[in-house]
């Protein structure tokens, strides 16, 4: 179940176009908040908020150097999306109630 929860967090984090663009940028290279702000023409608080969401989803990690925070991609972050098995487990669990509904509709 843990994996399934992580999965929806990752989906949510990458569902926003700006956040996805920030994430893709961080795949290419490590960046600071100010560099990202300049690049994306979004306010600094907005970029910080996006980075916070990405960090909470486990997609991005931060490295502090002096007063600057450098953000980069956590290579483990997308793992939940690759867990096909977790996908199936959730799928099968969710089918129980549908199966019951079908059986309820059957004649004796």
């Amino acid at each position, binding site marked *: 179940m843990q994996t399934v929860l992580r999965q929806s967090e990752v989906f949510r984090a990458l569902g926003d176009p700006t956040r996805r663009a920030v994430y893709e940028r961080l795949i290419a290279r490590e960046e600071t908040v100010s560099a990202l702000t300049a690049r994306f023409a979004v306010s600094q608080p907005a970029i910080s908020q996006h980075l916070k969401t990405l960090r909470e989803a486990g997609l991005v990690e931060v490295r502090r150097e002096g007063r600057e925070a450098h953000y980069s991609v956590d*290579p483990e972050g*997308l793992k939940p999306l690759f867990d*096909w098995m977790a996908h199936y487990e959730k799928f099968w669990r969710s089918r*129980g109630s549908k199966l019951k509904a079908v059986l309820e509709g059957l004649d004796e």
Partner: protein
Amino acid sequence: MTRTISVEYDLPFPPAKVWRALTEPKLLEAWLMPNDIAPVVGHKFTMRTKPMGNWDGVVHCEVLVVEPLKRLVYSWKGGAADNPGYGQPLDTVLTLTLAEKPGGTLLLLEHSGFTGENEFAFTAMSGGWRSHGGGRLKEVLESLG
């Protein structure tokens, strides 16, 4: 080494009814997905679900074991070799075991044959992301819709 998903459904219905829901295409579709199943050993059929990435969403199945009202086993294969995320190749087996109990049926669903390949693919890819991962990632994200 392979892994198995086991899910148990506690159903307040007799095995005969449960068996119908597992073996009649229309009934199976109502809780699972469109299919052309028949409880005959050797029967080949498909299940159709939402395409994912480069996979057309077709699951290829073949009935392996039929023990009326007791056990149904079929293969479950699908996916595309160049699919990096959901829908990567799957060569698995679905085993459905019915056990009659007072007032109903205990249906055990076992989906077996998952290999560690997903993780290996992931590990291999994660090394490549920093150098040339952008394009591949984009494909994955696009496949998420």
